[in-house]
C-alpha cells in the first residue's frame, strides 16, 4: 500500500516569509513604519487597490483577464462625485449609482466576451479607453472636491471593533464574502472548474458561459465599490485617478498565488496578501526616503521575483505530474 505523505509546502508559505521580512526590514529602518497610524493610513489609502485586486481575481479564476477594472472604478467614482456635487443626490443613492454603473459595464463586458466571443484582452482594453473617456466627459476632466458628508464617512470608525475604520470594514467584508463564495458555494466550485478546464466543465453539465458572465459582472461590481471607496478615502474626484491600477491589481493577484490562466487562486490569503505586499513596499520605501521615481522600479522587480517563485511552483507541480 502506497501512502501519500503530506509534505511541507515551502512555496505556498513563501509569501508570508517575504511579507514578514519586508515588515521587519522597514520597521528596523524607520521608527514610524510600524505604527498603527501608518499601517491604518496605508491600508485606508490602499483600500481601492485591495478591492480592485479582489475584483480582478474573480475574473482571473474564470480564466479571463479583465483590463477594464481600474477604469470601471474611476468611472463609478466620477459618476458618484457628479451626482452628489452637481445633482444633489443623497450620498447612499449616489454610491448605489456608481456601483450600478459598474455592474452595467460588467454586463456589457460579459455580453461582448461571453456571448459574442470577442477577445477578452482587446475587449476589456477597449472598454477601459471608452469608460475612462466617459469619466472625463462627465467631470470635464476637472477635480471635484467632495463636501463634509464624505469626509465624515472617511473618518467614521466602528466602535465595537476597536475603532476600526469603516472603510476598511468594507474591504474586509468584501474579501471574506468573496472567499466564502469561492470555497463554500457551488458557484465558487464551478468557477474553479471552468477556469481549470472549460471543456470538462461543459461535459459534466456546467454552463461555462453563465459562470464566466457572473464572474465578469462580479469583477466589475467590486471594482465599482472600489471606485466609491476611492472617492471616500481621497475626499475628491481627481483626474487620471486610479491610473494603471489594473496592472497593479493583476500583479497583486498573481503575487498572491492566483494563476493567470484560471482555476487556481484565492481571496484570503491570495488577493489580500498580494496587494498589501505591494502597498507596504511603496509605503516603506517612501518612509525611508526613497525617491518616488524609484518606487515603481522596486514594484516591478518584486513582480519579477513573484513570477519566478510561481514558475518554480509550477515546475514542482510538473515534476509530480510525470509521476508513476
Amino acid at each position: 500500500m502506497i501512502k501519500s505523505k503530506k509534505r511541507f509546502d515551502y512555496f505556498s508559505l513563501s509569501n508570508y516569509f517575504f511579507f514578514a521580512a519586508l515588515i521587519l526590514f522597514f520597521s528596523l529602518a524607520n521608527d514610524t513604519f510600524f505604527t498603527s497610524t501608518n499601517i491604518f493610513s496605508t491600508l485606508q489609502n490602499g483600500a481601492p487597490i485591495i478591492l480592485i485586486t479582489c475584483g480582478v481575481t474573480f475574473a482571473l479564476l474564470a480564466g479571463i483577464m479583465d483590463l477594464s477594472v481600474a477604469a470601471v472604478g474611476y468611472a463609478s467614482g466620477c459618476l458618484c462625485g457628479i451626482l452628489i456635487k452637481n445633482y444633489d443626490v443623497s450620498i447612499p443613492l449616489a454610491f448605489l449609482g456608481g456601483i450600478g454603473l459598474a455592474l452595467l459595464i460588467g454586463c456589457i463586458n460579459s455580453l461582448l466576451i461571453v456571448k459574442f466571443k470577442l477577445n477578452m484582452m482587446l475587449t476589456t482594453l477597449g472598454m477601459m479607453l471608452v469608460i475612462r473617456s466617459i469619466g472625463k466627459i462627465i467631470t470635464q476632466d476637472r477635480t471635484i472636491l467632495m463636501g463634509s458628508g464624505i469626509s465624515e464617512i472617511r473618518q467614521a470608525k466602528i466602535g465595537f471593533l476597536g475603532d476600526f475604520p469603516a472603510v476598511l470594514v468594507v474591504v474586509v467584508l468584501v474579501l471574506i464574502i468573496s472567499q466564502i463564495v469561492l470555497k463554500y458555494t457551488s458557484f465558487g466550485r464551478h468557477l474553479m472548474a471552468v477556469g481549470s478546464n472549460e471543456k470538462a466543465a461543459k461535459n459534466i453539465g456546467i454552463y461555462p458561459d453563465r459562470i464566466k458572465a457572473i464572474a465578469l459582472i462580479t469583477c466589475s461590481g467590486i471594482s465599482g465599490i472600489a471606485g466609491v471607496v476611492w472617492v471616500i478615502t481621497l475626499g475628491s474626484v481627481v483626474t487620471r485617478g486610479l491610473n494603471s491600477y489594473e496592472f497593479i491589481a493583476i500583479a497583486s493577484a498573481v503575487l498572491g498565488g492566483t494563476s493567470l490562466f484560471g482555476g487556481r487562486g484565492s481571496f484570503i490569503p491570495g488577493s489580500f496578501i498580494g496587494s498589501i505586499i505591494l502597498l507596504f513596499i511603496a509605503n516603506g520605501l517612501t518612509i525611508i526616503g526613497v525617491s518616488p521615481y524609484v518606487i515603481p522600479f522596486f514594484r516591478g522587480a518584486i513582480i519579477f521575483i513573484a513570477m519566478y517563485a510561481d514558475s518554480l511552483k509550477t515546475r514542482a507541480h510538473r515534476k509530480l505530474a510525470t509521476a508513476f
Partner: protein
Amino acid sequence: MENGLTLEIHNLKKSFPGVQALKDVSISARDGEILGLIGVNGAGKSTLMNILGGVVIPDSGEILINGEIKRIKDPATAEKLGVAFIQQEIQLFENLTVQENIFIANLKKWRAFKNFPFLNLKSMAGEANNLLALLGCDIDVHSMVSDLAVGEQQMVQIARALSQGGKILLFDEPTSSLTLKEKQNLFKLIGKLKGSNVIIFYISHHLDEIFEICDRVVVLRDGGVAGEGRVEDISKDEIIRFMLGHEIEQSIEYRKQPHQKKVLEVRNLCGERYPKDVSFSLAKGEVLGIWGLLGSGRTELVRTILGLDKKKSGEVLFGENGELQSINPQNLYKHIGYLTEGRHFDGLFLNMPIWQNITSVFLKKFVTNKFKLLNEREEKQAAKHSISQVNVSAVSENMLVRKLSGGNQQKIAISKWFIKKPKILFLDEPTKGVDVGAKAEIQNLIFKMASEGVSFIIISSEIEEIMGLSDRIIVIHQGELVNELGTMQISKENLMKSVIGRN
C-alpha cells in the same frame, strides 16, 4: 560477447513524493526482441519508459546500452542514444503539416543548402511519404495535423519516431486510438522492424496484443518485476496472477431483465454531419451498446443527444416513469451523466484535488445548511467512498488529479458519476487505459447500477467489452444506424458483418 545491440537495466529505483514508483527493477533485452511490458495502473510501466526516454531521471540504478553505462539525462540524450519514445497521448503540433511534424526534431538535416536555413521541402515530402507508406497509411503529408483523425495522428507520431532512426523503440499503448486496420498495419510494421536489429518495448493492457506480437513479456507490480517469461511458456491466467498478485474475481452477477418502461427515445436525430436520421429507445435498467468503428459517428451521436453538438432536426424524449416527453439538453443534463473519451482533454480538472473532481458533478447533494454552503467534510467522505469502489484506495482524496497515473485518472473520471446516480449514464470508452483488475470492477459496478435501475449507453472500441456489457447493441456506420442486435443475436461475427463490406 555478441555484436548485436543489447540493453540492460540494473536495479533501477525511482521515488516521487509519497510514492515509490520503481523499486529495484532489472530487465535486459537484445536486438530483434519485442518485449511486452504489462502491469496494473501505477505499477511503474510509464515511469520505466519515461526513464528510458529521458523524461524522468532515476534515483539510482544503471542503464547499459551495448555494455556501456549511459546516463539518459534528457529526451535529447535519449534520442542520440537511439531511444525513440512513442507516447500514448498524442503530442504533435496541431498547426503544422504532417511532414513538418515528422521531421520537427531534426530539421537541420533537411536544409537545401548547407549553411542556409532554407528547407528542402520536396525531399522532406518524399521521405515522409516513404515513412507513412511503410506504416501502410495513406495520409497527405501536406495536410494539417489538426485535420487528421486521432488514429492518423498516432500514425504520424510513430512515423516521427521512426524518422529519428531509433534503435530502441518504446511503444506506450500505441493501439488505444487506432482502428482495426491501422492496428494490423502497425503490427505488420513491428514484425518488419524486428528483423532489423532493434529492441522494441511494447506496453499494453490488451493481453491478446501482447501474445500476438511479443517474444517475451515482463510483468510489473508495485514498482518491481513480478514475473517474466517467453510468450510460449506463459498463460494468460499466469500473467493476470502476476499483475494482481491474486486471481481475478469473476463475479458474474445475476442480471435482472431490464424493465419495460422507456426512459429515453431518440427520433430521427440529425446533426451537422453525423448522426444521420437515427432513432432508437432505451429502457430503464438497460445497457445499450453503441458499436461502430472509429470515425463512424458514434461519439457524435451521443454529443448530439446531449446538445453538445448542434442538432439539425429530430427529437429527444425523456421520462422517468414511462411517460416520455420532449426535453431540451439543459433539463436532460439534470438526469444524466456523461463520461468523455479524452479524459485529459475534456473530462477532468487536473489542477483540482480528487475529491473536488468527484463531487463536481453533483454539488447539490452537499449543500446542506440554510446558507447554501458546501459541506466539505461530507464531500471528502463521499469521494473517499467512491474512489474505494474502483480501487484507487492507495491514494488520498486530497491529491491533485494531475499527479495520478493515466489509468487512475480514468477511474476517477468514471467513479464521479457513481455519486450522482443519474437516470442515464453515457460512457464513451469507460475502461480505456484501465488495468484488468479495475476493468472487472468497473464492469461489475455497471451491472450493479443497472440492476438498481440506471440505464447505460456505452461506446467501446473493444468488441469483447461491448459484447460482455450490453443487453442490446446498435451499430453505427457513417452516422447511420445500420443494425440492431438483441441479446440473442450479439456475436463477434454479427457485429463485424454489420460494418465490414459497407465501405
